[in-house]
C-alpha cells in the first residue's frame, strides 16, 4: 500500500516535481563533474608534478658530508660510501612499486676538460666517438686558459633495468625523473662515450655540439662526444652530464653510484602521515603503510636497501601536498555549494507542496497515520525524485567532467561507475536536507483546523 500511495501521489504536480528533479539533476551534475575531476586530480597533478623532478633522495647511510660548491663536488673521489647500481631493480618490488615512476642514480666526478685529441681511443666497453671536426680549446670565463675543471655528473638517461623475480625490464633515468630538462641537440646514449654539457659551461668554454672532449680524472682520460647542450637552471648548467658508466670508470667505482633521485607518485601529506610510525597502533601502521605517503614509500625503500638513507625532498613534497590539498578543497567546496543550492531549491518546492497538501496530510492524521508514516510518504516521493534527478545529473556530470578534464588537464577523467551510487546517495541526502523544514511542518500539522478548512 505504501508504494501504491507513493506511486499514485508521484504522478501529481508534474511541473513542481520536474522543477525539483531539475534542481537535483543540476546539483548532482556539478557534484559528479567535480568529484570525477577531484578523484583524478591527485593522480593527474601528481604526474604533472613528477615531470618537474624527483621527490625522494637516496644516499648511503655511511656517506660523508657532501662538499658541494657551485655545483662541484669537492669531496675526494674516494671519500664517502657508494651504492650498487645492480640492486636498483629492487625498487620496483616494493609494495607501492607501481607508484615509482622513475629513478636515476648519480655519481659526480671532478674532472679536467680539454679539447679532444681526435686520435684518442675509445675506452673499453664504450663506443668510440666520431672524429671531432672543429674543436675549440676549452677556455676559462676570462677566455685565456685552454683547460678547466668541472664536475662530470654520471647518470642514466634512458637505461634498461632488470627487475628481480621476473619483473621484466624497467626503463628509467633522467627521461623519467627530469623530463623537463631542456637539451639542445640530443641526449647521450647510456652505453656510448657521449655527454651533454651544461649551457653555462658550454658558453663559457665555447663548447659546441659535435665536439669531443677529453675528460680526465684520476689519471684516466676518456674522449666524450658532445651530443647536446643542457639547460636545467641548476648545477647541471655548469657541469658535464654523461652516462653513469663513464663516471664510474673515471672514478674507479665500477657499478657504483653516490646518490639516487626517485620520482614517486604520492598522496599529499596530511595530519595522519605526520605521525611517528613507530608509535602507531598496528591498524594505523597498516593504514599508513598501505597509503602512498612519501613517508611510507620511503620506509618501504629503506626496507629494500637497509644501508641507505631515504629522504623526501621536502620542498617538493610539501609544495605538492599544499597544491593538491587546495585543489581538492576547492573541488569539494564547489561540490558542496552546488548541493546546497540544490537543497535550497528542493526546500522551496517542497514547502509549496506541503502547503498545497495540508488537507490531505490532515486527513491522513485524522485517519490514524503516524507522523513517521506521513513523513515516509513525503520522503518516499522526494527520494524517487532524487533517484531520477540524480541519475540524470550523473549522466550530465560525466559529460561535464569530460569537458573540464579536457580543458584543465587535456585528458578526460577516468569514468568511475562507483560514483553513480555515491551521487544517488548525495541526491537523496540533498532531497532529505531540502525537505527537512517542510517535513517538520508536515508532521507537526494540527489536523483539526485543516479539516475545518482553516
Amino acid at each position: 500500500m505504501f508504494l501504491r500511495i507513493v506511486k499514485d501521489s508521484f504522478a501529481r504536480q508534474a511541473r513542481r516535481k520536474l522543477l525539483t528533479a531539475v534542481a537535483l539533476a543540476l546539483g548532482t551534475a556539478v557534484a559528479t563533474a567535480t568529484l570525477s575531476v577531484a578523484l583524478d586530480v591527485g593522480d593527474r597533478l601528481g604526474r604533472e608534478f613528477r615531470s618537474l623532478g624527483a621527490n625522494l633522495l637516496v644516499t648511503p647511510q655511511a656517506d660523508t658530508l657532501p662538499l658541494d660548491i657551485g655545483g662541484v663536488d669537492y669531496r675526494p673521489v674516494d671519500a664517502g660510501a657508494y651504492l650498487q647500481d645492480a640492486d636498483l631493480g629492487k625498487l620496483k618490488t616494493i609494495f607501492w612499486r607501481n607508484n615509482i615512476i622513475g629513478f636515476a642514480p648519480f655519481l659526480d666526478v671532478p674532472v679536467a676538460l680539454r679539447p679532444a685529441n681526435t686520435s684518442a681511443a675509445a675506452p673499453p666497453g664504450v663506443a668510440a666517438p666520431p672524429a671531432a671536426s672543429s674543436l675549440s680549446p676549452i677556455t676559462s670565463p676570462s677566455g685565456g686558459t685552454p683547460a678547466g675543471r668541472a664536475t662530470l655528473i654520471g647518470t642514466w638517461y634512458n637505461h634498461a633495468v632488470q627487475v628481480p623475480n621476473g619483473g621484466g625490464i624497467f626503463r628509467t633515468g633522467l627521461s623519467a625523473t627530469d623530463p623537463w630538462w631542456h637539451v639542445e641537440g640530443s641526449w647521450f646514449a647510456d652505453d656510448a662515450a657521449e655527454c651533454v654539457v651544461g649551457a653555462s659551461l658550454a658558453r663559457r668554454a665555447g663548447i659546441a655540439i659535435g665536439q669531443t672532449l677529453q675528460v680526465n680524472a684520476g689519471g684516466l682520460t676518456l674522449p666524450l662526444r658532445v651530443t647536446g647542450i643542457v639547460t636545467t637552471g641548476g648545477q647541471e648548467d655548469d657541469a658535464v652530464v654523461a652516462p653513469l658508466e663513464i663516471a664510474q670508470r673515471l672514478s674507479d667505482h665500477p657499478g657504483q653510484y653516490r646518490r639516487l633521485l626517485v620520482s614517486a607518485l604520492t598522496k599529499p601529506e596530511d595530519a595522519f602521515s605526520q605521525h611517528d610510525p613507530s608509535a602507531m597502533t598496528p591498524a594505523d601502521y597498516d593504514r599508513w603503510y598501505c597509503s602512498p605517503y612519501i613517508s611510507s614509500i620511503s620506509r618501504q625503500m629503506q626496507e629494500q636497501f637497509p644501508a641507505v638513507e631515504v629522504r623526501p625532498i621536502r620542498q617538493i613534497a610539501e609544495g605538492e601536498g599544499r597544491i593538491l590539498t587546495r585543489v581538492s578543497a576547492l573541488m569539494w567546496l564547489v561540490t558542496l555549494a552546488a548541493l546546497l543550492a540544490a537543497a535550497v531549491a528542493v526546500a522551496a518546492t517542497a514547502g509549496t507542496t506541503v502547503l498545497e497538501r495540508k488537507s490531505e496530510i490532515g486527513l491522513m492524521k485524522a485517519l490514524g497515520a503516524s507522523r513517521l508514516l506521513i513523513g515516509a510518504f513525503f520522503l518516499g516521493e522526494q527520494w524517487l525524485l532524487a533517484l531520477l534527478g540524480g541519475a540524470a545529473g550523473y549522466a550530465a556530470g560525466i559529460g561535464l567532467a569530460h569537458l573540464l578534464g579536457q580543458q584543465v588537464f587535456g585528458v578526460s577523467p577516468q569514468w568511475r561507475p562507483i560514483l553513480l551510487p555515491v551521487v544517488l546517495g548525495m541526491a537523496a541526502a540533498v532531497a532529505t536536507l531540502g525537505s527537512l523544514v517542510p517535513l517538520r511542518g508536515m508532521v507537526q500539522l494540527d489536523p483539526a483546523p485543516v479539516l475545518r478548512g482553516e
Partner: protein
Amino acid sequence: MTEPVKDLVVQAELVSKTFGTLRALDRVSFQVVAGEWIAIMGPSGSGKTTLINILGGLDRPTSGRAIVDGVDVGTLGERELTRYRADKVGFVFQQFHLVPYLSAVENVMLAQYFHSVADEAEAVRALQRVGLGDRLVHLPSQLSGGEQQRVALARALINHPKLILADEPTGNLDQANEDLVLDLLRDLHSAGHTILLVTHSLAIGRLADRRIELAHGRLAQIIFNVDENHKAVQEHS
C-alpha cells in the same frame, strides 16, 4: 439502587475547550451508550465541531474528561492518540475529504493501512455495501458528491470503530444524495453502530435517538426524540 449504565461508549465530563480567549466549549457533560445515535445540534459557533474533534482525538480538552470506550482521550500521548484515531473512531466530514489521487477503493484501503493491513477484497465489499460496487477504481473527481460521501462512510466503517463521528455529512449534498446517506446511517444504527452526528437540520436531528443541543459552548438541552415523537403522536390523536 440505580442500575449501572451498560456499554457506555462516550462519557463527557465537564469538557471545556478554549482557543485563546474564546471559550468554545464550557463544561459540557453527557453520556452515550453503545448503539445510540446522537445528533449534536446548535447554531454556528456553538462548539459542535469542537466537541466532535475532541471525541475523535483531533483536539484535546482544556479541562474536563472525554472518555471514549474507556479511554480518556485528553491524556493520550501523540502515538497513543494516533492509534486511538485508527482504532476507535470513524470520521465522516462535510467536505468528504477523500485523497484526490487515490481511487475509491484505495481511499478505503488507506484507513485499513493506517489501522493494520490493507485488504482490498474487504474494501471492495465495504464499497459494495454502500452501493458503489461499480465505482471502485474511480477517482474522487469522477464521483458525485453523494458517491464521495458514501466512499467516506465505507472508509469510516472499514475498521469497525466503536464510534462514528459525522460532522454535517449531508451538508454538501442535494436532497437525493442526502436521503441516500441518511438511509445508510439508519442502517448503521440498526446494525448497532454508535453514531454522533453534527447537523443543523432538525429533520435529520429527529432521526437520532437523542439531540444534544449546544449554545455558546454550553449544553443547552438533551432531547429524547422517542419521548418527543411519542408526545407528538399523543397530541395528534
